[in-house]
């Protein structure tokens, strides 16, 4: 655990130098590490990096899906078009709302359920396993089930709302301008919060018991114990979780696509859905690629900000 590179505490200097010496002793031929990383690196270059660069190239062209070998170089025109495109602006806003709500809700629910499942009670092992079921369910099956649950006339969701006398129960939420995004969010959060719960529960096992008990005996209330003892231990895990959830929400496709295809009228049209829609529905590969590049740029910015922040936090921890 002490060798964790993203952990905030830094090992004492002596420890570092012995580690370095040992690492040096273990090192064989100077080319060995390159040999070890070569196959996977080549693989990723062929199947990720080259396609990414091709997609970048495509974003500077006007290319139709139907005649993809006749492509015309148009420079930055696709990007200029996007600036004035209200659909694209809406997609940015939808993406930000979708991502922020997913991350905040998944982590809050994950934290709440992890704290709930951390305390001892009968059947705890069963409960811990059962709560992760949504994470194991295939998104395509989740989407099909959700479409049925949200069916306006016969779906159980509508039945329940109408039972409580709510008007919104007579709508198909996935078809409604106002309710499609909340419905897609509910379904996504249901699917992803167990992962946050598992990770935070694992992190909670690292909270020092003595400190926690000492704080409780000193008369600190639960909130203060949480702030003083629990949070500092789990904070790095929660931050990393926030980063991964953000990236995964920015790139989530199958669940949203099968639920709504980005509709109605763009109400759930995130950037990734927009990429696919422009490429395969509108058959404009160049425009789709340009939207994709904007999405990748946003993910990159999030990652860089995260690493800057953790580096600063690590420095602050040293002082």
């Amino acid at each position: 655990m002490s060798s964790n590179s993203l952990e905030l505490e830094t090992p004492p200097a002596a420890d570092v130098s012995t580690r370095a010496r040992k690492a040096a002793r273990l090192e064989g031929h100077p080319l060995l590490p390159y040999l070890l990383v070569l196959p996977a690196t080549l693989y990723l270059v062929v199947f990720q990096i080259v396609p990414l660069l091709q997609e970048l190239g495509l974003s500077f062209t006007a290319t139709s899906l139907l005649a993809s070998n006749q492509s015309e170089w148009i420079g930055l025109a696709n990007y200029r078009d996007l600036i004035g495109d209200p659909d694209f602006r809406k997609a940015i806003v939808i993406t930000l709302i979708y991502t922020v709500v997913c991350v905040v809700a998944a982590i809050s629910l994950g934290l709440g359920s992890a704290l709930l499942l951390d305390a001892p009670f009968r059947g705890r092992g069963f409960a811990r396993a059962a709560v992760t079921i949504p994470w194991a369910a295939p998104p395509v099956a989740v989407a099909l089930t959700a479409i049925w649950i949200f069916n306006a006339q016969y779906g159980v969701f509508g039945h329940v709302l109408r039972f409580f006398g709510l008007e919104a129960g007579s709508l198909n939420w996935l078809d409604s301008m106002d309710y499609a995004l909340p419905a897609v969010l509910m379904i996504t959060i249901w699917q992803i919060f167990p992962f946050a719960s598992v990770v935070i529960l694992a992190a909670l096992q690292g909270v020092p018991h003595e400190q926690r008990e000492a704080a409780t005996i000193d008369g600190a209330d639960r909130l203060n114990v949480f702030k003083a003892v629990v949070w500092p231990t789990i904070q790095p895990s929660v931050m990393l979780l926030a980063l991964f959830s953000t990236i995964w929400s920015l790139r989530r496709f199958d669940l949203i696509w099968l639920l709504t295809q980005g509709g109605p009228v763009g109400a759930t049209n995130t950037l990734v859905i927009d990429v696919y829609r422009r490429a395969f529905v509108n058959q404009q590969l160049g425009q789709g690629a340009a939207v994709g590049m904007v999405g990748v740029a946003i993910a990159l910015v999030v990652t860089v900000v995260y690493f800057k922040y953790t580096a600063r936090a690590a420095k602050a921890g040293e002082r």
Partner: protein
Amino acid sequence: MITSSARHTLRLVAVLALLGAAAFPIYWMFVTSLTTSSQLFANRPQLLPSFSELHVYKDIFAAKPVGRWLLNSAIVAVGTTAASIALAVFPAYALSRFRFRGKGAIGFGLFTTQMLPEAMLVVPLYALFAKAALLNSLGGLVLANTAFTVPVVVWILKGAIDAVPLEIEEAARVDGCTRMGIVMGVVLPLIAPTLAAASVIAFFHGWNEYVFAQTFITEDRLHTASVGLAGFVGELSTPIHSVMAVGFLYTLPAVVFYLMVQKHVVAGMTAGGVKG
């Protein structure tokens, strides 16, 4: 002041509510699959399964190639798992144990490939796979899926190898083990729980994958369960209880498999990538 027994009851209620919310959609998929057509469109939903309707499961196998779909998904999932682990073990070891020029760049590269959405790369990958005659091939799907699982698997395994003390490797070395022997015989057994966790992640990716399976495969006999099931969206001729039966058959193996290895996954997450 809340008494401790009241607090205990509150906790129990909260846990039950949590489990109910987590399990409900899966339960509902199952109940719907075992509901008669007339009950499906009744004014009140049927809350319990009617086991006299079990023939739905037999009928759906006759009506659609469900067995073939599930088999194809299993092939893709197992292939993706094997290829991901085989490709990821050595770079994970190198990133954990060596200092070398370009290590930072490779680490960052691994991380950034995590951001690339399948739905975006599907266009250039389609062109590549068409040239390499990899369309309409389950092997092609394995190749495409592995590109998206290798980075996260390397990341997770590296975290676990970091936690293996160097002294153990040195001792094996003194005993005359080769480097290859050390990695395969000493390091891998020590990180077995993390290997299990990484395998589960790769397996689920292959089992669930939809975009490539939908785009690269046009032959019916090669369709995976994700594509077969997605084909029911907007289709009206198949009754909803049959659709839910297929969905349940596709979900059940994943959930059961996950519950079986769940302990290892949690242990692996703790040791591995997600903690850094």
